[in-house]
């Protein structure tokens, strides 16, 4: 299966404390930047009095939007607000001072007079006719629709109809390193040091904001301390802020957010409200679905159009739905901004579709694997947007998962070990997900490989190593194409002076886009070396093999030359051994004009997954412990199996947090749990056993058939857990997170439904867990 595992490129420096993060860099004569942020969710800025702040010794300057070369306008988040603030955390002014403490003190001394305006904190209110638009003419950021078949008629013909509402919440990325940037003035412009998931885009945006040419801004990427979807727009804005100070003062300037600042100002996962109606026949076939979704964009546009685009495509799940209506709107509110968080619109709709299909299975008395197989995509199925699906790995994932549960998991035994006052349950969920950016976006990446005269290799790429193992993937691909060991290869840190654009490291696209660019670049080198080998060995091109550091004749392996000698020969002939690869994704289609995407091919490829969760619920407190997660993911071809497993482990951890404990407590736009003492990421004691299962159904585009995995790993953990909770307590929850209060009220409701006896029952009076009655139906729970 796949290639041999190799140690991730970035980890040794990280575990040895040698990784250079932005906060570790030293600069002469450095200024420190601190923000003055709006305490109001919506207000007009009447006056900014900075006299006291400027009078403080050590303060160099206080700057506002008036100091920007271009007036910020439109629905994109401004570096500094012009005259209106739209959420708590919007930047109003910034202070530059000799020390961080002085900057902080000065920021407190800047007196801003506001005229408080009515805020909108609910996306439904935002759509009311009387609601004032937060930007422009309307509060609708984006609106996408699908309308296929005849939904109304199909409902009439259905034996069973379920009408359900689901909600998901805002969560924070939880990256270890907070946002940070340093700007240094140079003779021609600026150098920016900033950890970001999209260095080239940050460079371009900073140049635009500060009125510079792209080649006047040099972007250097220090080691990134985690992203999970963050360090996109937040990085642009921070880099532009310190860049502004550097340009105005001629001195280097650094900005680093505290955890509170990061949580208050930074972007979050979109909260969704979803109405799902499904009609099915008695034998479990889905006839129709009608789906209506509202996504809370927060105060500015950010990635909302694309998050909701993904949501509309994936809303109905990996199922064939002949009659389908989907309507997804993203709307502005005066809440914190929503943007990319690992999953990017998928986890929300996966949550709804997977809870719904499991509930449908229960109601119809059909096994939960079976109902997914009945309706799931097969080779050639038509998707929600009418796209013909190929390389479908859904059944492979379901098979792998079911086989594991049946044969060797010990889960059945585990389910029967009920402790007093606790109940165990198991649930599953599955998914499909569009690869890479999709929706007709430009989707390209470049990689430059330079084989040195001594045959060692340096790789230049615009991919951001956010800890996902992206650099290692490049090495694996190049090593495979050139038939050499990875130890020969070094991936250069990113510097916009010499690294090509790799696009953003988002959308689980790194493996496919930069991986393909690396393949192309390596193939260019291979071609050069082949020419030399053909001449030296006098064998035809077709019979050359690149393997184990040699180039040899397939028919006569002793006839060959070493990789080194081939490289020397190239240089001796006055040529170079450099290779350049630029990969552009196959065309995808989208309907930006009308928003009706019923006939589109929005992604060039899709990935699949199926997860199972085993949970234990404390019937008194409602506390849920996740005993085990089994996660099958189709990665096409495992370039680095160890890393595939690690991605799955990490993704599961993030999914458990999403399901149970992570919850931004926001009241009228104010985040109350603004630090890790109250914002509860799962700890090692909350993530128990995780079993990753690697499924390989080669994708059409990825290098060697590989598909991306970064995000899928986190998408269906929450629905699997909530299905397991329903199985345990006999009552369904429809909202995330499944916190103590919600689970407890589910237990109370279930008590009425099926008389589950609370606690204190000795082991012998526990009813058999495998028979939990739901809505009066006695049913076997399939495990």
């Amino acid at each position, binding site marked *: 299966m796949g290639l041999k595992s190799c140690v991730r490129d970035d980890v040794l420096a990280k575990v040895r404390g040698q990784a250079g993060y932005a906060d570790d860099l030293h600069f002469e004569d450095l200024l420190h930047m601190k923000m003055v942020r709006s305490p109001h969710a919506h207000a007009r800025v009447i006056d900014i009095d900075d006299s006291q702040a400027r009078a403080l010794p050590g303060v160099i300057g206080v700057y506002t939007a008036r100091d920007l070369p271009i007036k910020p306008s439109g629905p994109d988040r401004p570096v500094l607000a012009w005259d209106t603030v739209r959420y708590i955390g919007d930047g109003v002014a910034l202070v530059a001072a000799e020390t961080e*403490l002085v900057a902080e003190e000065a920021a407190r001394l800047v007196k801003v007079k506001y005229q408080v305006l009515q805020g909108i904190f609910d996306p439904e209110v935002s759509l009311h006719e009387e609601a004032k638009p937060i930007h422009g003419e309307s509060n609708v950021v984006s609106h996408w629709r699908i309308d296929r078949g005849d939904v109304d008629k199909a409902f009439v013909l259905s034996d069973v109809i379920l009408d359900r509402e689901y909600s998901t919440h805002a969560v924070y990325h939880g990256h270890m390193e907070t946002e940070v940037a340093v700007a240094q003035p140079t003779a021609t412009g600026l150098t920016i040091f900033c950890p970001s998931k999209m260095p080239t885009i940050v460079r371009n945006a900073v140049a635009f904001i500060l009125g510079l040419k792209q080649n006047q801004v040099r972007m250097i990427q220090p080691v990134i301390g985690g992203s999970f979807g963050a360090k996109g727009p937040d990085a642009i804005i921070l880099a532009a802020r310190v860049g502004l100070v550097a340009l105005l003062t001629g001195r280097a300037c650094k900005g680093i957010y505290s955890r509170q600042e990061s949580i208050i100002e930074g972007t979050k996962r979109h909260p969704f409200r979803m109405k799902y109606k499904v009609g099915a026949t008695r034998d479990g076939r889905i006839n129709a679905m009608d789906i209506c979704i509202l996504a809370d964009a927060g105060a500015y546009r950010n990635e909302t159009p694309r998050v909701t685009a993904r949501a509309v495509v994936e809303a109905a799940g990996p199922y064939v739905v002949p009659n389908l209506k989907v309507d997804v709107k993203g709307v502005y509110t005066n809440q914190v901004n929503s943007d990319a968080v690992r999953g990017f619109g998928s986890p929300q709709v996966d949550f709804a579709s997977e809870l719904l299909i499991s509930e449908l299975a229960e109601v119809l008395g059909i096994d939960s694997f079976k109902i997914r197989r009945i309706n799931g995509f097969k080779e050639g199925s038509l998707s929600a947007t009418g796209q013909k699906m190929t390389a479908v790995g859904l059944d492979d994932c379901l098979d792998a998962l079911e086989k594991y549960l049946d044969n060797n998991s010990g889960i059945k035994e585990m389910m029967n070990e009920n402790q*007093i*006052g606790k109940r165990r349950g198991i649930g599953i969920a599955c998914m499909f997900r569009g690869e890479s950016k999709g929706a007709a976006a430009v989707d390209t990446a470049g990689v430059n490989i330079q084989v040195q005269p001594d045959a060692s290799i340096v790789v230049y790429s615009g991919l951001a190593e956010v800890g996902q193992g992206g650099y290692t993937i490049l090495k694996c691909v190049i090593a495979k194409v050139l038939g050499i060991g990875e130890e020969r290869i070094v991936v250069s840190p990113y510097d916009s002076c010499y690294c090509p654009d790799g696009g953003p490291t988002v959308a689980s696209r790194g493996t496919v886009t930069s991986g393909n660019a690396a393949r192309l670049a390596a193939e260019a080198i291979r071609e050069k070396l082949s020419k030399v080998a053909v001449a030296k060995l006098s064998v035809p091109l077709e019979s050359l093999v690149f393997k184990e550091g040699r180039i040899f004749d397939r028919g006569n392996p002793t006839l060959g030359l070493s990789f080194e000698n081939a490289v020397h020969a190239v240089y001796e002939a006055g040529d170079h051994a450099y290779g350049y690869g630029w990969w552009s994704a196959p065309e995808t289609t989208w309907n930006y004009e009308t928003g009706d995407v019923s006939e589109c091919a929005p992604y060039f490829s899709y990935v699949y997954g199926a997860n199972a969760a085993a949970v234990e619920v404390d*019937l*008194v*407190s*409602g*506390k849920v*412990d996740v005993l085990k997660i089994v996660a099958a993911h189709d990665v096409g071809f495992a370039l680095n199996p160890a890393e595939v497993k690690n991605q799955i482990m990490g993704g599961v951890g993030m999914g458990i947090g999403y399901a*149970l*404990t992570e919850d931004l407590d926001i009241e009228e736009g104010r985040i109350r749990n603004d630090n890790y*003492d109250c914002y*509860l990421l*799962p*700890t*090692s*004691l*909350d993530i128990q056993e995780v079993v990753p299962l690697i499924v390989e159904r080669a994708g059409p585009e990825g290098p060697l058939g590989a598909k991306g995995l970064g995000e899928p790993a986190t998408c269906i953990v929450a629905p699997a857990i909530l299905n397991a909770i329903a199985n345990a307590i006999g009552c369904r929850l429809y909202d995330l997170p499944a*916190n*103590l*209060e919600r689970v*407890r009220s589910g237990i*109370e409701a279930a008590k009425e439904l099926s008389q589950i006896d*609370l*606690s*204190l029952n000795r082991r012998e009076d526990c009813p058999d867990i495998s028979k939990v009655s739901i809505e009066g139906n006695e049913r076997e729970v399939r495990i």
Partner: protein
Amino acid sequence: MIRSFLRPVTIYDACQQMRDHGENAVLVAGATHVVNELHRGLINPSVLVDIYRLNGLDVICMEGEELMLGSLVTISELIASSVVRQFVPALCQAAQSVGGKQRRNRGTLGGSIVHADPGDEILSVLSAFDCCVVLKDIEGERVLDLREFISGIRQTTIRNDEILTEVRIRLPERGSRMSFRKVSRRNASSSSVMNLTCLLLLKDNRIVCARLALGSVLTKAHRMSDAEVLLAQKKPSRTLFEKAGSLVLNQALQEAESEGLGIVDSVGSYKFSLMPHFVAQVLTETWERKE
């Protein structure tokens, strides 16, 4: 802004320095809480008086029927102590459930008591016992019952120039069974949503005496006397424990009202809805424990 960081070598010096600097000074032990307050701008002292390295305040020993604990004993030391484990196992249990490892290694018993958080696990256990604290200043010392010492949510009757030096716990009769349980949102580094310390002394399958201390519900950990009275001299049974649970709920509701606490928010109603079951569960667990 902090201008000086003092590190006295004797308790007397520490008290003297606190007196000299008055309201501008803050005493620091493990600093886990103080640093948090500084960071959030909730306190703004110019002087920190660090007592973490004072000698003699990290003692754990038995004196007659009393367990003496120095105020600088860390949470980790409580867990590791065989004396604590033998005589007050509930304190070990509670200590194990506190915060994360760093917090347990740094944070002190004295800091927990003076911080007086209503959800503090250590305080919940101490409240189940007859327990007093020793406070010293340059003139001498006073000994206060823990109940008098804690006056409200994160409020105590300590004066700024006093140092808490030790805690004395009067041990219950030998053979008492005890346990501590907390409800929290995750399995580590999580504060109590609710906690309960329970003590039962049984003779001939009859409860001689029961003690219940409920934490994280009222302004401070509270003894639940109505339920204690009910349990005394009864034969343990599930029905009895459930009745005790209801009494705890009633008493907690009454106290909450008299303390003027709002109980309508979702967490409040959650706490009250699970309380009787939780109490019954912990009572059962304690009863099933070995002596």
